[in-house]
């Protein structure tokens, strides 16, 4: 094997930070390879959430009492931390959501519905997650706009598509930064340049990219970017919507109510300043505190290091899987020399992915099977579903070996 089993940090020490990785599944050691769905949480994040509830649980923003001040400081400070993490100017550009889907809906309904007009087009890629595809379908239907798709082959946007599909009638572009099916990256720089030439706004779906690779929204020049906290070591129920200040001023609130107002009269109201006008209702304060701790954790390890580690583990896995005639890998193969991340979609001989995942689970190996919230893409690929192994900062080369060995059992049963 040509791959050197190296890592930029001590993976075993990192694994000790994640309590759940020590558990067994029906007597087998857990091999957690479902990170594109959600990541595990380090003790520091679990502790941060507990400490909030044990030490300063209170509602935020208006309370004058000490606990509320502490909670507000932590909650608002978490916005600053996330802003810095993704290269945003400041907290006014960072809106906390419950997940990526809520972020996309805020943009689609708060911005898209008010700016996409009849005859305009909205451009997406063929590999969008349902969370990005479905809200824009609704905008297109309600506003009589056209949906266009950048065609994808083996996880890569085909040459010439960006130039062909994005034109003077394009108002909005929504693009998945890193594919949750292939681990490939969309050419966001090219897409954003082209869109901006035509005055279109671009929403980048960073649900998979932000946890795994260094992302800088200012350098990228994205108008909006959404991501989720729970895929990057943070608690479930946390997500982030980034927007450029002028883009957010063009956006109507999507959730009305408490916490998002400035002055309320019986028949009208005005909105709070950014970012709070988009955070109606009591927010997920404990979640924000946990997300803040997750950012600290990732920064200490270095997101570039995480990416390097995952890329190496992925290449190792690809070499082994591609060596096996009975395994079909979808997307770019081991010899692909451009940037890619730790997601591998595959199928084993005649076994349906659902059955493969079941048999792998018997051996403690957690993978995901299905359409990965990309049904049209699966149809385009001509497969009903795939099995997906997705890696994160704590996965080891030995776990890849376990996966390969686990696949042997699938082959035995379905031989």
């Amino acid at each position, binding site marked *: 094997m040509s791959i050197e089993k190296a890592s930029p940090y001590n993976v075993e020490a990192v694994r000790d930070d994640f309590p759940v990785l020590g558990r067994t599944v*029906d007597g087998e050691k857990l091999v957690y390879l479902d990170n594109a769905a959600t990541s595990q949480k380090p003790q520091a994040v679990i502790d941060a959430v507990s400490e909030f509830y044990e030490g300063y649980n209170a509602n935020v923003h208006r309370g004058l009492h000490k606990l509320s001040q502490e909670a507000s400081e932590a909650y608002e400070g978490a916005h600053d931390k996330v802003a810095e993490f993704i290269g945003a100017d400041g907290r006014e550009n960072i809106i906390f959501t419950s997940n990526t889907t809520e972020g996309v809906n805020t943009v689609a309904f708060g911005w898209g519905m008010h700016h996409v007009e009849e005859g305009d087009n909205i451009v997406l890629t063929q590999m969008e997650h349902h969370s990005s595809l479905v809200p824009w379908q609704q905008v297109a239907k309600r506003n009589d706009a056209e949906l266009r798709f950048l065609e994808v082959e083996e996880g890569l946007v085909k040459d010439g598509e960006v130039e062909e599909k994005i034109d003077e009638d394009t108002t909005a572009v929504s693009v998945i930064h890193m594919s949750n099916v292939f681990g490939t990256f969309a050419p966001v720089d090219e897409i954003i340049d082209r869109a901006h030439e035509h005055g279109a706004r671009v929403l980048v779906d960073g649900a998979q990219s932000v946890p795994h690779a260094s992302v800088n929204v200012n350098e990228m020049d994205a108008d909006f970017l959404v991501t989720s906290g729970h895929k990057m070591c943070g608690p479930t129920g946390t997500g982030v919507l980034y927007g450029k200040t002028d883009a957010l001023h063009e956006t109507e609130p999507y959730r009305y109510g408490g916490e998002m107002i400035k002055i309320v009269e019986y028949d009208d109201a005005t909105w709070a300043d950014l970012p709070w006008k988009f955070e109606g209702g009591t927010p997920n304060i404990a979640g924000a505190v946990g997300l803040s701790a997750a950012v600290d954790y990732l920064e200490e390890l270095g997101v570039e290091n995480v990416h390097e580690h995952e890329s190496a583990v992925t290449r190792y896995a690809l070499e082994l899987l591609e060596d096996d005639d009975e395994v079909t890998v979808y997307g770019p193969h081991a010899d692909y020399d451009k940037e890619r991340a730790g997601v591998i979609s595959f199928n084993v001989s*005649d*076994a*349906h*992915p*659902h*059955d493969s995942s*079941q*048999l792998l*689970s*018997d051996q403690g190996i957690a993978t995901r*099977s*299905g*359409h990965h919230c990309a*049904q049209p893409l*699966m149809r385009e690929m001509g497969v*009903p*579903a795939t099995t997906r192994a997705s890696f994160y900062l704590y996965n080891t080369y030995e776990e890849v070996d376990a996966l390969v060995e686990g696949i042997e*059992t699938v082959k035995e*049963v*379905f031989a």
Partner: protein
Amino acid sequence: MSRDMYRQRILDHYRDPQNYGTIKDPDVTYEDVNPSCGDEIQMYAVVDDEDEIVDVKFDGQGCAISQASASLLTEKVKGMTVEEVRDLETDDIREMLGIELSPVRVKCAVLGLKVLEGGIVEYEKGKGT
């Protein structure tokens, strides 16, 4: 261990399903999917004057459990009345398969029955009963 799930009988029906195919002009036809894993099943049946199922076929694609279960179901329901089929429940499917099923896999196992029952409901509506 769910390896027990993949008994020879299940694998045989998955690889070589019984009554696989379509029926032209069926009395009963319906299709549905299991969105969590993408299993798809269509059922076709011919019903005689006594409401008895005289022919039944299925097609579709999906995991071993969904396809084997549909195959076994077609064998089971031939000769039953539509009312008897409507009375079948998840436990009957469990018994028919003879394997332990986790809650997630139960959905795969009962898809065939769900589709056939859906078709029967439509059929009865059409008859005005």
